[in-house]
């Protein structure tokens, strides 16, 4: 920069609010701003002016932006205000998430709630939740109809609808970083759809799905553990009837982890029933949840 930057520093207000200073010059000007109330006032005023120029450039954003933002803010901790610690704690409700860390705590792989075999083939073991290693091995060998993943971003997007924040943001972020690609694909899908519905026995379920991706993520909030001797079973329900999506394992404290469904087929709706502990080939009772997917 030339010598005239020093005496002329006030005249940089215009270039500054246009972000037209190189980074070193920007830093120097900001240092000057800190000591120059007149400059600060002028910057404040001119910022309002350029903000109007900026707003005049508005365009309708792609619809998927909202889902993507919603997914990310649900796993983004908010900064406390720049004051005393007292206020900091009251201003961060994200920290007070009601859901005590459930399955996410265990990391994404352990999420696998529904790892029993492909249920479409009549002889599947309806009731067994495979051990972790077994589940991993099976995942490698074949693509099951469902797999349980801590798909944090998608989960977050769905949870965002419910406004529920999980207790451990960090865990979700960790899981998110591992699953970013898959999740982004789902969120990027032009036909990404989300919805939610109440579970008749209490709680809510939410879905994020895409026909073109042929995938859906289902999450639950406030779902209690099933009655003793019973289990929850998921169903893919379509014109061809109900196809088992597998069992939904729920910790004793409730709050099952998210599940990802591959191969939606002709299913229009995701259903949930209460079944005997080993599951059933077909629903034996009325669904306690009907969760429509996108078309």
């Amino acid at each position, binding site marked *: 920069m030339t010598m005239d930057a020093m005496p002329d520093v006030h005249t940089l207000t215009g270039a500054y609010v246009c972000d037209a200073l190189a980074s070193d010059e920007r830093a120097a000007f900001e240092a000057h701003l800190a000591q120059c109330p007149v400059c600060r006032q002028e910057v404040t005023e001119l*910022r309002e002016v350029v903000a109007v120029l900026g707003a005049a450039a508005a365009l309708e954003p792609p619809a998927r932006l909202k889902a993507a933002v919603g997914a990310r803010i649900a796993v983004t901790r908010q900064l406390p205000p720049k004051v005393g610690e007292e206020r900091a704690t009251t201003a961060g409700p994200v920290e007070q998430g009601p859901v005590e860390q459930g399955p996410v705590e265990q990391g994404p792989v352990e999420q696998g709630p529904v790892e029993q075999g492909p249920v479409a083939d009549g002889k599947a073991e309806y009731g067994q939740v495979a051990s972790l290693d077994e589940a991993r091995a099976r995942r490698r060998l074949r693509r099951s109809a469902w797999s349980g993943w801590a798909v944090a971003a998608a989960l977050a997007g769905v949870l965002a609808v419910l406004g529920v924040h999980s207790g451990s943001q960090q865990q979700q972020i960790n899981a998110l970083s591992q699953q970013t690609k898959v999740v982004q694909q789902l969120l990027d899908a032009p036909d990404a759809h989300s919805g939610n519905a109440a579970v008749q026995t209490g709680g*809510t379920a939410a879905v994020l799905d895409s026909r073109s991706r042929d995938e859906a993520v289902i999450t639950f909030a406030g779902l209690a553990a099933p009655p003793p001797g019973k289990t929850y079973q998921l169903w893919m329900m379509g014109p061809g009837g109900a196809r088992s999506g597998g069992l939904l394992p729920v910790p004793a404290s409730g709050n099952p982890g998210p599940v990802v469904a591959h191969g939606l087929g002709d299913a229009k709706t995701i259903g949930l029933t209460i079944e005997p502990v080993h599951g059933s080939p077909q629903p034996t009772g009325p669904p306690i949840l009907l969760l429509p997917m996108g078309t």
Partner: protein
Amino acid sequence: MTERVSGHAGAHPPGGLRGVPASAADGPGGVAASPEECLRRVALGDREAFDRVYAIFAGPVFGLARRVLRDPAQAEEVAQEVLVEVWRTASRFDPQLGTAQAWVMTMTHRRAVDRVRSEQAAENREARLARSSAVVDYDDVVETVENRLDQQRVRNCLGGLTDLQREAVTLAYYNGYTYPQVAQLLAVPLGTVKTRMRDGLARLRDCLGVGR
């Protein structure tokens, strides 16, 4: 938090994520809360208030990023970053220091310009362009109706500037050029560009009636 939202969730129709809850952050009298009030509530973790903030600012944020960056995929990335940042740093918004619009658009412009100037952006541009054209046809983006009014007002006021003022301001702000680059493009001395930007913006301020 749980009680409030779970009650709300049950009544929410499927696909609600895409919808804009019209009165989500309305004040007690049913009057829509100001953007500043919404930001205050966002700082308290209020998701509904954030939905309203999104409804207000997603278009301006995306549009400005698009204007500066040109590349739709990068503009979308910047818009996403900015809107998440609004959520993250809402507690740092100080209404004494300006409007919510100035706060959000300042953040947007800064990020867009930083990206323009980063080398990585140049490296990625080609791949991203390929990706974006495959995914969405951005030629179909539409301007919102209110913005046509804003645009008309801005256009009128820009028309009231001298050519040099107008070019200096728009090349810097909409194209993301540094003022030495602007000086080069317009073949005028650096000092002239600085002062034209400043007095051009001052004249716009008076014409638009913003900023006191």
